[in-house]
């Protein structure tokens, strides 16, 4: 396709605009985390760092509980992500394929649950976990994050399943594959982009979750990054360098996960299946 020069220029400028809009804050945070404190709070902000230091990172990792928060967040995030995928795939298949009474009704009910803000169920959930003895336990966060990620994940997974031609499933049935095998060997490999998307979604939801993490976790050594990090900011003074270094590190796992599963987003996996 050939485009005229002005049109291409316009498109390029548009892309550049959004790139700057999204990228500049990140650049400011990451570059700032390597600046000396006096440059960070300088009256004239610098786009290109004039100084370089690792003192904020050293302080963050040696003198604060940040590494503990990071590990806790990773445990909760990865566990929520895996659990969400493990539950969303069979649930989506059941909603998609099985002949259940009130199937559509249940499906809508699940989506409806997603529409309520978490704060509404905060107190009942706290009471529930208190009775189960799960308060101040990372498991509580894993359960909560999975619960909140599931409705959207099931919905997303169901749309991915809907792209798989029914013939494939029927061919597998004719070939003698029972339903769990069809799911594992035929459907899941074909909806890997969906599985990856759901996994990333669940991880990021968990990674950024603040409300439940702040209420259900009491002891400092079990806090996750968003809550623990908020404590680092301090009551009377803000250590900007520390804050920016912490924020930069918090972005890192998300970037790594995206770079790992990004390949799975490549579509065209079902090419040649039918026709």
């Amino acid at each position, binding site marked *: 396709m050939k485009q005229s020069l002005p049109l291409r220029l316009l498109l390029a400028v548009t892309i550049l605009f959004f790139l700057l809009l999204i990228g500049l804050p990140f650049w400011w945070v990451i570059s700032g985390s390597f600046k000396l404190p006096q440059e960070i709070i300088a009256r004239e902000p610098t786009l290109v760092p004039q100084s370089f230091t690792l003192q904020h990172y050293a302080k963050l990792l040696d003198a604060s509980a940040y590494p503990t928060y990071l590990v806790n967040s990773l445990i909760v995030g990865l566990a929520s992500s895996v659990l969400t995928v493990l539950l969303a795939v069979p649930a989506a298949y059941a909603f998609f394929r099985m002949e259940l009474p009130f199937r559509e009704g249940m499906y809508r009910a699940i989506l409806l649950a997603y529409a309520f803000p978490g704060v509404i169920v905060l107190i009942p959930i706290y009471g529930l976990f208190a009775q189960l003895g799960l308060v101040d336990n990372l498991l509580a966060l894993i359960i909560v994050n999975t619960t909140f990620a599931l409705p959207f994940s099931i919905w997303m997974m169901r749309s991915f399943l809907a792209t798989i*031609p029914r*013939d*494939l499933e*029927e*061919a*597998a*049935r*004719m*070939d*003698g*594959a029972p339903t769990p*095998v069809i799911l594992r*060997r*035929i459907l899941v*490999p*074909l909806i890997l982009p969906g599985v990856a998307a759901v996994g990333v979604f669940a991880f990021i939801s968990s990674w950024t979750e603040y409300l439940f993490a702040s209420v259900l976790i009491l002891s400092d050594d079990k806090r996750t990054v968003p809550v623990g990090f908020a404590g680092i900011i301090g009551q009377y003074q803000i250590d900007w360098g520390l804050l920016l270094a912490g924020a930069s590190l918090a972005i890192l796992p998300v970037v790594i996960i995206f770079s790992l599963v990004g390949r799975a987003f490549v579509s065209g*996996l*079902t*090419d*040649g*299946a*039918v*026709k």
Partner: protein
Amino acid sequence: MTNLTLRGVTKRFGATEAVSNVDLEILAGEMVVFVGPSGCGKSTLLRMIAGLEPVSEGRIEIGDRDVTQAEPVERGLAMVFQSYALYPHMTVAENMGFPLEMQGLSKEEIAGRVRATAQTLQLQDHLDRKPRALSGGQRQRVAIGRAIVRNPVAFLFDEPLSNLDAELRVQMRLEIARLHRDLKATMIYVTHDQVEAMTLADRIVVLRGGRIEQVGAPLELYDNPANAFVAGFIGSPRMNLIPATSWRDGDGLRIVVPGGEVRFRPAGTMPPDGAAVQLGLRPEQMAVAGGVPLPAICDTIERLGAVSYLYARLADGTAVTAQVDHALAAASIGAQVSFALDASRALLFDASGRRIA
């Protein structure tokens, strides 16, 4: 080798009956083709035999085993889908080996059988490829290979050639016919293409509206259709069904068609005088030496070389098709032509399409 029997098989979707009370015996080693217009229930019937669609009423037996409620895999049938339904993330070898893997065979045995099957289908050079790297014909062969490799009681084909282009379709048709000959396997083949049915079938089952209209060998259906629907459906170009009225004439009938009349000697009951009937004549019975003359106006001529088809209108506007010789094919469009009907081979149907003679 086992027979496959359908007894009163019925399928309802809500209030609509897609397949009604079908009785059929398919003999071991036979190639039976289900043919009919779309929506006639042929695919539903095949899917019920496969076990993919539950049966509302009736029984399906394989040999003397009642499989009506059996899971697809328990029936020992293999199916080739219209869309091929190859597993896109698996190689050709993995696709063909999948049913064997499900049977729990050892890796060596699977590899051996897949290789042997690939050989017969000329797929041995493609075993490591993914389906997307194959042409349409090759994909169809892989789908057939996946069916053959398990050595099924019977093969089910659901419009397997519909996605191929015309040339490849003819080639694959011959290949399936050869496969049937070599394997001596029972095959049930669904198609809406009556040419495919005629060329492949030992017996054709013509379906309409979920019911069997007629079962028989291809030429039996062609020469001796049970009703006007079968007469019109089997054969290409279609049989001409000319509206006519019937009058008694001694011990025979005088059939008055637009622009002429034909004499008939029916075997069974005579229609009452003045009854509306349909005279059935194949295109090749429209213009024969010494036939009953019938005038018509020429509309179009298709000159195919070996044969020519003349499309014409009778006096009342009824469109008819005639297979004509070179002399008649030289007629110009809009000109008056005179057909010569072979009345001895004509068929007679009453107004509802039932065969009278």
